[in-house]
């Protein structure tokens, strides 16, 4: 079951107003786009969050970009008002602030919620919530009622303290920095899943993202990482992928090879560095 957006007037409606989008039963894509300027163009990426709802509890995967907290909170409250199970857990894939910048406000505004995952650094940033932080190891599961979220191998990562998440019911993989690519706002890609964004040039947008945020992928042999990714997807029998920065993937067999081709192509392009100076708009 995929919650279809209205394609008409896509450009006229900010993506934050079109979310939440249910990408699998009980798995809601929330958040907003982040526009970044690069090589004279404006690229849109996501710093998405996902709410995974069981019968007893919900878990938020990622907190979204610091700028997006009001949107994330609004989206969650809309879902809770619709009867989604209360938020009891927060899982963030790693410690970079576009993934976890809303952590302090989530724990403040949802006082029953626990932070789970690799909890490194958070006690240094938000010491007032240290008593609500729980460390997970690979294979550990958080029971939500009828489904669980499992910590799984983070194949594509930057910080060593990364875990990926996996929803055991709908077999949704949450790969953090994996499957990271921007999208074309002008083509109406905001809020679309990958299979709907037919004009997306994956080598171009993958390379752009690598320049901005994944420097190491320009230096490592990405073939071995793609092979390992295939192995993980097969082992977990992944049906849907909910990346933090890319568009959600609902046809794993067709789309993952395209994303991998983009990643490999991006690795062959010389890195061109991070944000150049631009005039304030």
């Amino acid at each position, binding site marked *: 079951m995929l919650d279809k957006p209205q394609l008409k007037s896509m450009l006229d409606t900010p993506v934050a107003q079109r979310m939440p989008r249910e990408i699998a039963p009980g798995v809601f894509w929330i958040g907003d786009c982040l526009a970044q300027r690069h090589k004279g163009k404006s690229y849109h990426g996501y710093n998405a969050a996902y709410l995974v709802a069981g019968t007893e509890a919900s878990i938020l995967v990622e907190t979204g970009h610091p700028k997006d907290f009001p949107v994330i909170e609004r989206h969650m409250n809309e879902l809770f008002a619709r009867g989604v199970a209360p938020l009891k857990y927060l899982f963030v894939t790693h410690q970079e602030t576009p993934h976890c910048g809303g952590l302090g406000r989530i724990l403040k505004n949802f006082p029953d919620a626990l932070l789970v995952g690799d*909890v490194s650094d958070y006690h240094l940033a938000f010491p007032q919530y240290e008593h609500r932080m*729980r460390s997970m190891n690979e294979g550990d599961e958080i029971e939500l009622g009828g489904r669980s979220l499992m910590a799984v191998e983070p194949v594509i990562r*930057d910080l060593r303290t990364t875990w990926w998440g996996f929803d055991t019911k709908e077999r949704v993989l949450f790969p953090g920095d994996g499957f990271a690519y921007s999208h074309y706002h002008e083509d109406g890609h905001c809020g679309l899943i990958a299979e709907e964004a037919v004009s997306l040039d994956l080598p171009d947008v993958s390379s752009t993202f690598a320049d901005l945020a994944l420097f190491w992928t320009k230096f490592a042999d990405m073939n071995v990482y793609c092979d390992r990714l295939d192995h993980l997807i097969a082992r977990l029998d992944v049906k849907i992928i909910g990346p933090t920065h890319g568009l959600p993937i609902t046809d794993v067999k067709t789309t993952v090879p395209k994303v991998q081709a983009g990643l490999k192509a991006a690795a062959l392009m010389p890195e061109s560095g991070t*944000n150049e100076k631009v005039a304030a708009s």
Partner: protein
Amino acid sequence: MSISTQYAPERTHKPQAFAGGIASLADDRLYALQNPFALDGRVSSYPASARGFAVVNSYLLTQPDAAMLIDTGFGKDEPVIRGQIEALIAPGLPLSMFPLRLNEFMSINNVESFAGHFNVETCYTSNIDAALWFDFGAKAEGRDILKSMKVTAVTRADTIALGKEGRLIDVMQAPIRLIATRWLYDRTTRTLFSSDMFTHVWRDTATGPWIVTEADNDSTSLPDVRSFMLNTRYWWLEGAPTDTIRRGIGNVFDKYDIECIAPGYGCILRGRNVVARHYAMLDEFLKACDKSVAVSRYVTRDEER
């Protein structure tokens, strides 16, 4: 639920003898604001097996009429760092901030608080749209404070003039990095601010010492540097084409007369011989990683080398 219920080793809750300090690197010019944290397996910038202590370093560059703060430290230290800055600059003195990495708490965690407390003239970043990247909800009015804060974008190769005397600080894209990172070079004190590089010296106790000088018997070795790099955020270097990275770092050390390396974490490396030795160790490590002599392979998350 099968997750661990132990959230913190006991010793991290015990009072520590040293709560942080100000180290003068050049009187009336440059100060290090050093605040310790325990290495207990819960710090992403250090190997999981590292034990002991490190410091997170913020730096304050002072002029008679202006000051600049490089990195703002962790939230846990906000009151201490605020006090350290207050002890060093006059109330109302124009203060600029330069977080070297936009994605990491140690750089940006306290931008919001300091923007609301000090007379912040501008925040230098690599991204003109960065103001709300610093919005962590530290203050109820934090979003408004950040929206009104002036942000000044700097290029990958730029120069900042601090104060009316025009103290020159060179900005460069970090030649080795995980994410968008800037390095700075202060021509006045001949100090390189290296962000997450050269962070490899830590101590057994919270009291340090936190500066390595030429008078010290510094025991850091090439195997130490290798182990540190491969067990932290630079786990991907083995088998990479590191010649380009080496050239980039070499260009920095060729171009600038560096007497002090001021990293974001761990011991400051001070003195020409200390600087030369640690640069040589890093370069030797990178040379040994190059794809001409090493193979790029899949590295699992918890593999320690």
